[in-house]
């Protein structure tokens, strides 16, 4: 559920969290963006730029790349000049949940082309449901697994959607 007004967790009292410096992290994003767009322009220069009268496939990407470099430089300058503000990252139980979720999702995505959706989806759903709660774990795991299997079946049967198949 997204709220457009982000209230610092420390004020709202929701969840455990620790503060990180927004300007410092933005500086990092700005520098990564700068490097990425420099690489983008170098790659764009390999395409034929043509001229303004006869534009080639590289012309517009070069403009975009230069615009991206300017925007990234702005992010860096603004981060260096910005007053100290903080945002929060989770810790404790919330951090464990986030890491569990992201690692689980990563493993599911990696296993998907090997085992296929009909094996990965229920296992992923059961393990995630089991790991994200401390109460009625088995019941939650079974319900989740059954629901995603039903959903996957509905997608293939009624909507004729193709799903990743196992390698065998």
């Amino acid at each position, binding site marked *: 559920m997204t709220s457009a*007004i982000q209230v610092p967790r420390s004020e709202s009292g929701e969840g455990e969290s620790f503060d990180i410096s927004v300007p410092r*992290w933005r500086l990092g994003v700005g520098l990564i963006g700068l490097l990425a767009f420099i690489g983008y322009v170098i790659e764009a220069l390999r395409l034929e730029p043509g001229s303004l009268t006869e534009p080639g496939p590289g012309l517009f990407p070069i403009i975009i790349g230069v615009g991206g470099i300017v*925007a990234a430089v702005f992010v860096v300058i603004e981060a260096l000049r910005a007053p100290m503000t903080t945002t929060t990252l989770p810790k404790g139980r919330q951090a464990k949940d986030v890491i569990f979720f992201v690692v689980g*999702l990563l493993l599911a995505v990696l296993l998907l082309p090997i085992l296929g959706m009909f094996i990965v989806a229920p296992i992923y759903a059961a393990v995630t449901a089991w790991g994200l709660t401390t109460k009625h774990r088995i019941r939650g795991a079974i319900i989740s697994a059954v629901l995603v299997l039903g*959903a996957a079946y509905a997608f293939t049967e009624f909507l004729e*959607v193709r799903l990743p198949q196992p390698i065998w």
Partner: protein
Amino acid sequence: MSPIEGFLYGLGLSLSPDILIAALVAGLAGTLIGVLPGLGPVAGASLLLPITFAYEPAIGIILIMGVYMGAQYGGSTTSILLGIPGEASAIPATFDGFPMAKKGRAGPALVIVAIGAFIASTLSLLAVTFSAPFVSQFATKFTSVEFFALTAGGLFLLARISGAQAGAGIGASLLPMFVGLGLAMVGTDPTQGSFRFTFGQIDLSLGFDLASVAVGLYGISELIMMLEEKISKNRARAVKLRELVPSKSELRQASFPWVRGSVIGFLMGLLPIPSATMSAFTSYRVEQSISKTPERFGKGAVQGLAGPEAANAAAAVGSMVPVLMLGLPFSATLAIAIAALIVQGIQPGPLLVTQQPELFWTVIASLFIVNIVLFILNVPLVSIWVRVLRTPRHILLPIIVVFAMIGSFSVNNNMIDVYVMLAMGVVGYFFRKLGFGLAALLVGLVIGPLIEKYFLQSMLVSHGDISYLISTPVAAIIWIAVVASIVWSAISGVRKRRRRVKDGQPVALTTIGEDE
């Protein structure tokens, strides 16, 4: 064909079983998406996008718009029952809707929202119906110069207005926009058919798919954000059918705000801004400023709920004018609606009304049907939405993820789209945390190829003369607005910084309209 004839023609075509079922499914799915945590209209619409490819274009756009309209309503349900806005546009509904619920008036509040949304959407649809031929006639005179200004200038304004946290600066709003535009260039070049930025990977020749990027940016990142919060102990109270009827006094108080909200919403829907969210806030301010009892606002004032809810519903419909008549999406959800049409070989724009009237009027009439479906179904189904709100997070979350994986894979039957979804989820999480805007990234991805097309056409026509890009009044006005927005933000930024230094206050953490 006159507007009335066109509408009746569209209504005749819409009353087919396929379109009625699509309207029903879209309305219900949209409300469910609005109610569910972790899924906004953008992620919801992008999940539906691959499914739309299997059907005719009218059904595709009805599914997307039905989700958009339904999600506005569903978002308000959680605002009223839990004080937690389902979508950004539903934030004003928490100000007075939740206090009404605490006073035992949750049922009437939900009905006031439903009636208001119905009235506002209907008025807005009438305005779209009657203005369509004129806007389209006017827009047929547009050349690549005007379209370049509308796409590039509109995207720039969108990035500035909805881009980043207040006080974050121009870089934080423009960087995501350029990332979106940069990603849009990946794939096959439109002029010579050569590959750009594919690095020898044939999987990248079709470019980055919108659905995967949208689901990752909005859906996966939102789920991670959700896990950071402690499970709320607030449980939505069941609302019985007999508790739904508003009193005569409540209906009287709501009537004028509904109309005012409809006008505000429709007009703001035409602009390159996150219109549903901004019109809801504007309407709240208007109602508060003209009220004889402004002190009641925030304590359960009916006007404070009725006006904004009508405004966001009207804006959702009003924003169809730039989509259908100019081919310009000014929000992430509308970008997905455009993608649903483009994939089917239909380019929305001023010629749509004349060249494909059956599609245009079917879509308009079908939106009317979606509107009726939402009105008829949502109020009686409120107890079901309350039950959905009670679904445990650990069960809901894996289901949403599996839906996201299926949706991403099914676009091209390619695992690379699932990897993109995952990567975009991580990018979206950090962008949200650090106050970078997401809407401009997504809209940039969709209209990037259009901007390039209009730029190249302008250069070919003018033999490389850059000044040609501001050679018409419409283009000049748009670029003046862009420059004014830069100057204004620079001045207000300096003022805010001075005030902060003077008062020693921190920067406000606000992001406008990220959900649209």
